[in-house]
């Protein structure tokens, strides 16, 4: 899977689940997600569950933090590294 496909898939999920009605262009690959409350702790858990199911990967508990999930770029890096 191409990196851009990962970004598009995750972006679509975040827009649908947590930002209904948002202009998709506003969500860029470096928009902060956790530090601005777009992803709160429950939303982060939902995102991790989605990543695991969608890409058939395992996200370790210690990886589910802002260092790995705060932007689409970071999320794509994390997923890409596990495929």
């Amino acid at each position, binding site marked *: 899977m191409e990196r851009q496909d990962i970004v598009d898939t995750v972006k679509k999920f975040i827009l649908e689940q947590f930002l209904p009605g948002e202009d998709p262009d506003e969500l860029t690959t470096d928009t*902060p997600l956790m530090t601005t409350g777009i992803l709160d702790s429950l939303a982060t*858990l939902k995102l991790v569950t989605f990543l695991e199911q969608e890409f058939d990967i395992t996200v370790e508990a210690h990886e589910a933090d802002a260092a790995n999930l705060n932007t689409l770029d970071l999320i794509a890096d994390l997923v890409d590294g596990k495929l």
Partner: protein
Amino acid sequence: MTLQHYLDESVERFPERTAVREADGASVTYGELGALSDRLRDRLASMGVSPGDRVGIYLRKSIDAVAAIFGVLKTGAAYVPVDPSAPPSRNGYIFANCSVKVAITEKRFEEGLRKHLAAEGAGDTPLLVIGEAGGGAGLHAALDAVAAAPRVATIHTDADALAYILYTSGSTGKPKGVMLTQRNATSFVDWCSETFAPVPEDVFSSHAPFHFDLSILDIYTPLKHGATLALVPEDVGKDPQKLARLIRDARITVWYSTPSILSLLVQYGKLEDFDLSHIRTILFAGEVFPIVHLKALHARLPHPRYFNLYGPTETNVCTFYELPSTIPVERADPFPIGVVCSHLEAVVVDEEGNEVGKGERGELCIRGASVTPGYWNLPEQAAKAYLTTGVGKSAAASSERWYKTGDVVTEEPGGVYVYAGRKDRMVKKRGYRVELGEIESCLYRHPNVREAAVVAIPDDELGLKVRAHVATRDGARISVIALKGFCAQHLPVYMIPDVFSFHPELPKTSTEKTDYQTLLKME
């Protein structure tokens, strides 16, 4: 007796026992914690800190931060802990607001803090900067970097001296500082000793951040008894599986947190994979525990004793309720907030301040040793929040202050209080006090916001959701990403609204006030 006495006595009795342990395994003994806080006391004294002063603490939760707290207390000053994850503008405001004599911080926060202290007119506040907090090494290194300060004696202030100031959300748009005296704290900690009977073999969790009043039980109860304080880092604290592993690995025996984290733990923590039989007591406070999650937790961990603790920062815990050892499956109501603590008195009053009958609704008022003296530099707000005249039939004892909790309760048989709701616009989100008015003040700073009204709505998963209704100047909706990013510059992340709704204009009552009742029902 002072808070610093508790540590001194444990240093004397248990010098080799572990006082504080971090999640990565770093730890200090009582002897080491005593010595490190003594060194900081000497350093602060040499910087001019003396009894009656305030000292800011802007550090990650760590052994260094615990030593900093005791170092400050030993000078006779009061400590002012702030949220290291909050915007530096908020922390700069807080330190300037209570004119701290010195602020202790980490290298990574220094630049932001200096900038915002200067913006508040307090740019000359001396900073004690440590490289990075962790394991006590950062504080040691910072103290080693300069010549040793002359040794001074620990000062045991009198019971009415301030011990710390905790800033909470303020309705006027700025945080307000709740002042707490030594007596306020020690009377509460002594009640904890009596009620939970700590022993040196106990390991207490420290889940709450130090600027949050749950930390008072966490820090001082174990340290008074020679037990161990297990620090839970902020990132682990929000992650249920990491948290379950930490509880197991640290062999925590007494857990204390808000219900929301326990709800996440039971739903997502995979508790069936962990042996947590060492937990003997689970305490929760700060908000209503949704009964469905509490029942699930109790079913998963049936052996500990469970206590619902209740109390605003202004009184700390003032009522408590021990859950029965079995919870009927059909139970649908939350548990009561319980009976008044032994060091306090309670009364329930109507709008005029007259005591209401048992079973009738009224506002809970609290009097006694842990009732705080007021807010830093806000005498008018304190005058509204506290009653100094007699309340109900206790008018004879009117020389003492009553704190009006703003919480509506009923008194049931056995002196058990049941929580019924709030009088005002403050809500609890994940245990944090959130003044909806403070969020509105932030939104009004946005150039395109014409009207803003914030409401809290019940939510099955989160317990409570904060929704912001906004009318913009140009009539177009603002990007939620942009608005959340804007809020993140001014508010801690837990205060950022969960949901935004945009309207051409907000509904008004017949007197042209924002119609919150209608807004509560609007999407």
